[in-house]
């Protein structure tokens, strides 16, 4: 590959091929095969469809794609008849799949009750189909998509991630061709700086500035690293991106490598992401074959090679200095900074390390320019951010939104709000080291500074919606338990301090909290934040500090009244009692009580024996009318 012209030629060849395939009038069936899809059973669906097509003697083409973000609806199957719209089916079972093949693929009639959305691609439509399709919302009609702004996720779920041709067909590698043939490294850096792109790995450091620092450090050899460790439990943005659009990341890395002058790059992926690793391997091979990786790229004299390094899976290995130690074959332990990686990184060489999503934003910026990117988002936080929306919200999944959108918009407009009768209590943002934002702050705009000032952080983009059934002390304990067990153990405050905080939370949650415990948690928490060696310790107390800040009364209730307001913490203080007025006598409580403390006739108010009650709270959790409270 020598020039943009050559790339465009290739693209038009691919276009022609695809057009020819269209003319062949073959139906296309596309199964969502990201890890989420596979977990929901996509592989079996794929096989069932294969079998059914054989039976029906159909010549329809069966392919796969990555995660489109609607995790709630997995497994997803798309059907596109020649000339028709691409229709997406959700929550597809094996039987559904067979029905879809028979009725839609072979019979030409959309299975309306399973259709979720459609993508307008149809050119010539016949009457019945037109009617039918009109009844199915387009993607843009869906709330889940309408408010999203998809830059990084644009191709996820749309193209086959194992086909470089499909990536090129949607304009892939053009940014990299432009950078290498028409821009100087300095110009590339200026563009990224101008766009205001900030690191998506958590800290939000300006990407262009980081590149510039690495470029300016003199050295015969420099490295580029893509951080795909993604150790936050519950986070899967980077995985989905690598599985759904690996070439975008590779393209972003080529541009970055050119800008900083790195000849060697590593993608550090956790070993638990086998599918991402496989797709990356395939993508790297394809990119090499097309001449996007290797020597003298686009005739620019610039060489770049890319390797995959599998991480052992420790959370702390996502921290950049620990990650580099791990690549060097040492124990993944952070070291003090300075020196920063841009000065002394991998094997002592200047190294630039960015997150997957950061690299994923780069091709768009180079292609459309800094101004276009800056137009999205806020002044200080430009562009878009991908979040993994989970918890007690209707539409869970991956969403990409412009920075500056409020939390309320994300949860209610995109996420569809909470289930009937459930009330939002807090939103936990930023992964295990993030903070809990209370209901009153739902109109907080999502940007680096606002989140930080509210005691949370952007982190890698986890967003967990919690309702009234959540105990905030228990939530804080849950997250701290994770960070505490993942501490590398090197520095005193993180190793010893988080353990003591956890012990205090344990005793508060089991009804043995003491006067002064909240203050001790605050003292320790602030101390750990301010004296830890790395940001694991530096942010580990966030969930505790932010819940104390916004939900102090829950802590006090545990400690002073021995009560868990959400009825989550077992073994708190006194026995439970059933409100005789509210009880409907369904008997659910009696069935879960481990000691048989609940008695009562069906449809009559039940009672709990104070002697037998363990205060485990199991009954209270089950009660459909919230008649059970702790005395």
């Amino acid at each position: 590959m020598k020039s943009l012209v050559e790339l465009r030629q290739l693209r038009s060849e691919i276009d022609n091929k695809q057009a020819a395939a269209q003319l062949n009038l073959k139906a296309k069936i596309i199964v969502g095969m990201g890890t989420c899809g596979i977990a929901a059973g996509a592989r079996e669906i794929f096989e069932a469809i294969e079998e059914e097509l054989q039976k029906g003697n159909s010549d329809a083409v069966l392919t796969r794609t990555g995660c489109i973000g609607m995790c709630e609806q997995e497994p997803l199957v798309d059907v596109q008849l020649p000339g028709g719209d691409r229709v997406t089916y959700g929550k597809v079972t094996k039987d559904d799949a067979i029905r879809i093949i028979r009725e839609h693929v072979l019979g030409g009639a959309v299975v309306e009750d399973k259709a979720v959305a459609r993508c307008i691609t149809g050119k010539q439509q016949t009457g019945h189909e037109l009617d039918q399709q009109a009844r199915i919302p387009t993607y843009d009609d869906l709330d889940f998509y309408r408010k999203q702004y998809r830059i990084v996720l644009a191709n996820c779920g749309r193209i086959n991630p194992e086909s470089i041709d499909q990536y090129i067909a949607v304009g892939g590698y053009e940014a990299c061709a432009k950078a290498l043939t028409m821009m100087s490294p300095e110009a590339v850096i200026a563009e990224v700086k101008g766009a205001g792109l900030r690191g998506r790995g958590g800290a939000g450091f300006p990407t262009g500035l980081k590149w510039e620092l690495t470029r300016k450090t003199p050295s015969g050899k420099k490295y580029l690293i893509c951080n795909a460790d993604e150790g936050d439990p519950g986070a899967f943005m980077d995985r989905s991106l690598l599985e759904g659009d690996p070439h975008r990341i590779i393209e972003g890395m080529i541009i970055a490598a050119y800008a900083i002058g790195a000849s060697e790059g590593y993608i550090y992926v956790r070993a638990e992401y086998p599918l991402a690793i496989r797709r990356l391997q395939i993508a790297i091979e394809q990119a090499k074959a097309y001449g996007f990786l290797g020597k003298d790229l686009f005739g620019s004299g610039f060489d770049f090679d890319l390797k995959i390094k599998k991480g052992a899976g420790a959370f702390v290995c996502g921290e950049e200095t620990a990650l580099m130690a791990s690549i060097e074959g040492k124990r993944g332990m952070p070291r003090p900074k300075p020196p920063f990686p841009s000065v002394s990184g991998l094997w002592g060489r200047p190294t630039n390390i960015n997150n997957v999503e950061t690299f994923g934003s780069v091709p768009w910026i180079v292609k459309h320019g800094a101004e276009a990117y800056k137009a999205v988002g806020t002044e200080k936080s430009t562009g878009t951010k991908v979040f993994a929306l989970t918890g007690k919200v209707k539409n869970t999944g991956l969403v990409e939104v412009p920075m500056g959108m409020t939390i309320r918009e994300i949860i209610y407009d995109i996420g569809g709000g909470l289930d009937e009768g459930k009330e939002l209590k807090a939103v936990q943002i930023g992964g295990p080291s993030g903070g809990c934002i209370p209901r009153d702050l739902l109109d907080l705009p999502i940007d680096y500074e606002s989140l930080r000032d509210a005691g949370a952080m952007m982190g890698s983009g986890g967003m967990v919606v919690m309702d009234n059934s959540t105990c905030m002390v228990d939530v804080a304990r849950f997250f701290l338990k994770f960070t505490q067990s993942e501490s590398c153990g090197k520095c005193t405050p993180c190793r010893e301090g988080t353990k003591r905080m956890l012990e205090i939370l344990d005793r508060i949650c089991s009804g043995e909290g003491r006067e002064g415990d909240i203050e001790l948690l605050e003292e320790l928490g602030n101390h750990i934040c301010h004296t830890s060696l790395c940001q694991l310790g530096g942010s580990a107390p966030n969930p505790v500090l932010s819940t104390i800040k916004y939900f102090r009364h829950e802590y006090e209730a545990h400690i002073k009244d021995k009560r868990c307001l959400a009825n989550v913490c077992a073994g708190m203080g006194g026995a439970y009692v059933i409100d005789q007025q509210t009880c409907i006598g369904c008997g659910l409580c009696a069935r879960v009580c481990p000691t048989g403390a609940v008695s009562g006739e069906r449809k009559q108010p039940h009672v709990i024996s104070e002697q037998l009650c363990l205060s485990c709270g199991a009954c209270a959790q089950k009660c459909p009318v919230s008649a059970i409270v702790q005395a």
Partner: protein
Amino acid sequence: MSKITITIDNQQIQVENGITVLEAAREAGIEIPTLCYHPDLSLAGSCRVCMVEDINSHRLLASCVTPVTDGMQISTRSAAARRARKLNVELLLANHPNDCLGCGRSGSCELQKLAADMGIDRKGVDRFAGQKRKRAVVDQGYSLKRDPNKCILCGRCVRVCEEVQGVMALDFAGRGFDAIVTTAFDLPYSEINCAECGQCSVVCPVGAITEISEIDRVWAALDDPDKFVVVQTAPSIQVSIGEEFGLEPGTIVTGKLIAALKRLGFDKVFSTEFSADLTILEEGYEFINKITNSQKLPHITSCCPGWVKFAECNYPDLLDYLSTAKSPQQMFSTIVKTYYARQIGVDPASIFTVSVMPCTAKKFEKARAEHRDSGFQDTDAVLTTRELARMIKELGLDFINLEDAEYDQIMGEVSGAATIFGTTGGVTEAALRTVKEVLAGEGLDRLDLGLMGTREAQVEIAGRTYNVAVVSGLSNAAKLLDEIRAGESKYDWIEVMACPHGCIGGGGQPIPGSFDTKARRAKGLANIDQAKQIRKSHQNPDVIRLYEEFLGEPLGSISHELLHTSYQARDVR
């Protein structure tokens, strides 16, 4: 490097750009407490005890790893800084046995001192009371024991083992509260690729790594009326043990040392310097043989047992290059239980030989199966400098004011050549003094090789020039051995000492022992050598008599049987 201006505690100072805040503060005479910091090792920044406050940003900084920047304003005494430092020590103590009364490091423990200096009280620690690390003490083997429960994970031992010794026997393992510093698979030192040099025990700020004590065994022998207890003290003890009693490093206390040993009840007191002279003769002649018969070179010394074990573990293919001469400790004990026993008419079975060594590996060496040439275990017990000091303190002896005493006869003469065995380069200089005189009939000028890692010299003997290398610290030694392996070594003679700067920096020496301390001990030894009448081993009259009456000649058949040994390849992790 350019100078920049910073302010520490309102004191404006000019410092080199590139140094750390801690170094700048110490230059200005301001002390900041530290734990994981060690002047001879790389920086870790892990204990977070050296926190100071950056007044401009109000951020807390670990001063040991923070480089100074122009215009920086630092407070070491702000409330936030003091609170942060204290809290980190409290957290360490909350997970510590706090067993000072029964701890070998009480008095020299840096954690104990910090707690006292900071005025930490029970209340401050007890508010964090909770789970404590509970792991078994690892004390199998002969030289070192680890008490993981006292470990504060400062990583100094890990660093000294990797950076100075290149052995990498220790590392961090586990995560979170379960994180520990340990050996591969938690194995005892004796079963791993560990040289047993004890450098870890010297740098450990607390009592987590200590020598396996033989004090009780020695007391038992002294208390036993049927035992004839003979003690030898290594050359370097006389310039280091004074530190245990408040004297400056390098203070020569030979006479007081002998007096103390006699007060402890040893029947006979000798110096290992006597057998060092013997080693010189045996090894010198061995070298002469090698060069006159054109045998393969380099000749590599073998008097350091840590080095020997390191070679056995890592360079088993090069063991043939090692001198077969036993170490002075082992020669001495063998001679005591043979020649000396006969001369004074004592049954060797009743003799109990003790050696006082600057070294933990000597404890391992004495237990080697090879060392039973006298018909008994040649050396019965080995005490480190620290252990002997403890015994002297137990009796409450006023060490500093003891009346000087003298070594016992008939092995009481020592040469200056033997004295400098205690420092790196000493063995080489001592041996070459003798070799040159034997081959060329002329004396050798002082080589004065200094103390640092690897040094080399060219020595002219009888018309031929020999390339000599002197190396201390095993990671330095490894480089020279790799050259030999690759067939690229230019050396004819290599002296290796496992511990940096030789026995004066041994793993059994008083704590603390930074480079500066060691340099002063070395000076003490050089002064003794300088003042000696006899400065060449072959002129030691007691040694001459030993050959006349018993051994015959160097490398003769009795020597061969009693004074030489063999090595074994070790297949360990």
